[in-house]
């Protein structure tokens, strides 16, 4: 895996931003990005989108011999792949630490939590069982892979239906989907993993983006650790904890973990509900013989992706009137003034016309025979930043 | 030379050997397997050598792999003949089931003369390897259900009297040196490894069989970029056999003494890594 470098500038910026109560994309601390689950034409294939993070999961099954120690249980196998598609730093056909870590977490969350009724996958004891294989492929790595991959695994497992089987004497007949209705997998409970980024040992961000993840686990330019870390919590819809994983250099005190668990309990319910609802609607669509296909995912959402502004932070109280006033007025903040919201589409506030920019700049003679362009001095001090979602 | 047996409680047999600066731990694991179709009445034996990076910095990463392979290869060759180690004693049920011995060799510290030390440690570990008795065998169609005795003391020991020892001879100048140190190994361009069968008498005092007292070569191999004149080669082999004989006798005595101590009183443990 190639190294990804994060500039000190970026690090400091994000740290500062978070400490002031904002996030780069304008979310609240405990707000998740938009979650979307799309199913493919086959049973058990889905794409989960969490903001820009996209993960494809596909469940396949085959008949194999059971393991000797568990002769009456089916086998669940989870395989995670991160190809160069996810981000350029990943190399083809090479396992990174991240892949192994992700694989292990998902195995803990779905195999060790015993959420799947493996005994129902048995066909003939000691001879034939179903082996389920979940292939998780990361399409785009926009941060919080763990949560996205776990939702994808859950959704594909819950959506999957295996062919029906009948036994006649010694022989086992596997029916095609056309012959007999396939059977859904039995899930006792629906666990999902959620990630929290911790900044400065105290601030808890749910659903961190790629840059937040990288900043919180890295140290400052002087090599001092910032007390940041990643906390992964696996929880099912009954608010039962099934996985806890701590990462990074944060000193976790029990309060913060507790706080995270409470927050996770809330969102796990929402996520599971969403997944269930999507599966239900998918089922009714299928019953109505409406074709479902990944092609439905193609929209023109990304048409403007190169021109659209992703950042939703902006200079606070950026007002043409203020700017033309003297510097002293500049930082006399009156916080109670309502912020322009991203919904009212008043982009004019953000965009300065050329004329306005020029009005900020003054040409001054400095040394003999030189002139200097000095933009308004007051602006060059620390810019107050606001988040337009609050 | 320091030797200690039965150091790993989970293994069927084990030994730890310290020869000058060389430190080796050997564990023997037993498993049930199906014999090879062309040798239905024999068991199987397999050697694994692990050069831990602790032993010398050169082993870091994959550095030790080649050495590990060549040692395990050498051991496999040395134990190949029935004269050296009779695999028939590992047979449970002809053509159906047999014991398979996994011999794991861990090199903890490397101070020269690895081959010799490994072969000594393996022989010591095999000497106290216990194989559970098979209580009953149930025939069920083509399959066999084995019932093993649960009592760990209800087991048999292996006959390892003739198990081979390897002797490394380093050619330095015109002379060959037995038991070379790491420095001596560095000086020589060619070394000869001779595997010689042991003598049962040294291990089983009441063994009366007069027949096999003679030492035999089970394997010979050369190592290093140099070459030798055939006369030197012949002399070296002879020298190696003599050395192996005395080594074998010493090992036998040490093992017997230790076994008696074990029976006599509670074992005085040296600690795992002294």
């Amino acid at each position, binding site marked *: 895996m190639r190294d990804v470098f994060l500039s000190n500038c970026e690090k400091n910026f994000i740290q500062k931003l978070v400490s002031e109560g904002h996030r780069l994309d304008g979310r609240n601390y405990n707000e998740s990005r938009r979650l979307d689950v799309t199913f493919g034409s086959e049973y058990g294939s889905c794409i989960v989108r969490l903001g820009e993070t996209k993960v494809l999961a596909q469940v396949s099954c085959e008949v194999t011999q059971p393991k000797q120690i568990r002769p009456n249980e089916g086998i669940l196998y989870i395989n995670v792949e991160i*190809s160069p598609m996810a*981000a350029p730093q990943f190399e083809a056909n090479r396992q990174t630490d991240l892949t192994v870590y992700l694989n292990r977490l998902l195995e803990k969350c779905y195999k060790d939590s015993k959420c799947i009724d493996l005994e129902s996958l048995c066909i003939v004891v000691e001879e034939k069982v179903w082996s389920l294989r979940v292939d998780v492929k990361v399409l*785009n790595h926009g941060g919080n892979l763990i949560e996205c991959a776990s939702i994808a695994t859950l959704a594909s497992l819950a959506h999957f239906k295996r062919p029906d089987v009948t036994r006649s004497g010694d022989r086992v007949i596997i029916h095609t989907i056309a012959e007999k209705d396939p059977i859904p997998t039995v899930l006792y409970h629906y666990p999902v993993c959620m990630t929290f980024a911790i900044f400065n040992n105290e601030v808890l961000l749910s659903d961190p983006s790629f840059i937040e993840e990288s900043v919180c686990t890295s140290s400052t330019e002087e090599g001092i650790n910032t007390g940041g870390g990643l906390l992964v919590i696996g929880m099912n819809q009954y608010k039962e904890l099934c996985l806890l994983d701590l990462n990074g250099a944060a000193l976790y005190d029990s309060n913060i973990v507790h706080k995270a668990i409470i927050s996770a309990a809330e969102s796990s319910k929402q996520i599971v509900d969403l997944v269930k609802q999507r599966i239900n609607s998918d089922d009714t669509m299928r019953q109505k013989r409406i074709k479902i*296909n990944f092609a439905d995912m193609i929209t023109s959402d990304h048409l403007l992706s190169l021109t659209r502004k992703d950042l939703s932070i902006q200079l606070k109280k950026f007002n043409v009137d203020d700017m033309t006033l003297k510097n002293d007025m500049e930082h006399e903040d009156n916080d109670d003034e309502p912020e322009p919201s991203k919904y009212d589409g008043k982009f004019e506030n953000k965009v300065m016309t050329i004329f306005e920019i020029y009005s900020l700049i003054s040409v001054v003679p400095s040394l003999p025979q030189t002139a200097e362009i000095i933009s308004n001095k007051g602006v060059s001090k620390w810019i107050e930043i606001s988040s337009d979602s609050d | 030379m320091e030797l200690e047996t039965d150091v790993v409680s989970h293994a069927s047999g084990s030994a730890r050997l310290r020869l000058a600066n060389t430190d080796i731990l050997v564990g023997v694991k037993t498993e049930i397997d199906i014999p090879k179709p062309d040798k239905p009445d024999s068991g199987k034996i397999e050697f694994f050598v692990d050069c831990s990076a602790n032993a010398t910095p050169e082993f870091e990463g994959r550095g030790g792999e080649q050495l590990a392979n060549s040692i395990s290869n050498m051991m496999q060759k040395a134990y190949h003949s029935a004269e050296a180690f009779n695999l028939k004693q590992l047979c449970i049920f002809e053509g159906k089931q047999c014991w398979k011995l996994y011999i794991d060799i861990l090199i903890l510290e490397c101070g020269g003369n690895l081959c010799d030390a490994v072969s000594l440690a393996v022989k010591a570990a095999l000497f106290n390897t216990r194989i559970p008795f098979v209580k009953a065998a149930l025939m069920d169609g083509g399959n066999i259900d084995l019932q093993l005795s649960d009592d760990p003391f209800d087991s048999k020991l292996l006959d390892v009297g003739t198990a081979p020892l390897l002797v490394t001879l380093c050619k330095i100048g015109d002379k060959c040196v037995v038991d070379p140190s790491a420095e001596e190994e560095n000086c020589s361009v060619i070394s000869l490894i001779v595997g010689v069968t042991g003598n049962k008498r040294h291990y089983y005092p009441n063994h009366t069989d007069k027949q096999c007292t003679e030492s035999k070569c089970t394997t010979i191999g050369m190592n290093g970029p140099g070459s030798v004149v055939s006369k030197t080669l012949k002399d070296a082999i002879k020298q190696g056999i003599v050395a192996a004989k005395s080594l074998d006798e010493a090992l036998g005595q040490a093992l017997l003494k230790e076994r008696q101590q074990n029976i006599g009183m509670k074992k005085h443990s040296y600690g795992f890594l002294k």
Partner: protein
Amino acid sequence: MGIEEEKPKAFQLKPMKCEFNFLSKSDGSAILSQGDTVAVVSVNGPLDIKSTSQSIEKSTLEVLYCTKGGKPSVADRYKENVIRQTCEAAVLGSLYPRTGITVTIQELEDFGGLLSCCLNCTCLALLNSGVSMRCTYAAITCAIDESGDIVLEPSKQHLDTARATMTFVFDSREKNLVTSVTEGVFSEDTYKEALARCHAASDLVFNFYREIIRKYANVI
């Protein structure tokens, strides 16, 4: 956004839908559906690669083909090779010596004609990434059914019963054959006829490319 109206008299291709910049982390990406068959492709590069795989003459093209699930196989490597060789003919690699261009293809749905969908999608993703290209290319799949008739863009059912299937790739400049992959047995005449019909159909694909690029270029 299909191209149904263009040439109603000859034949129609399955409706095509395409979206650029589907993946935010890649330098170029495209998702393409041809009928019910869908593939997504990402292009990264030119970027730094290991010195052992660098070439002084041209950029090293690495193509990775990912199936939806299951284990890797020799057949996947074969598809990968078909796509790599085709891209190599199209990309002006000599402009980026000592670098690597990574193309990753992920199959999403297969209802026949997956290979040509992957090839076309790759071409679109390359266009999107801004890598310099000698020409674009278009892939068309056809099948020869039981009775010996040629079916363009066959469906899954067609393929199951087909005597042979062929995939042809044509370049945009001379409209010559770049890649040809066939399966099954067929006579020489059928081959020629199939080739000619695919050749004609490739124009429709090129038109579609133009339309898509126009749409995106307007925004940018």
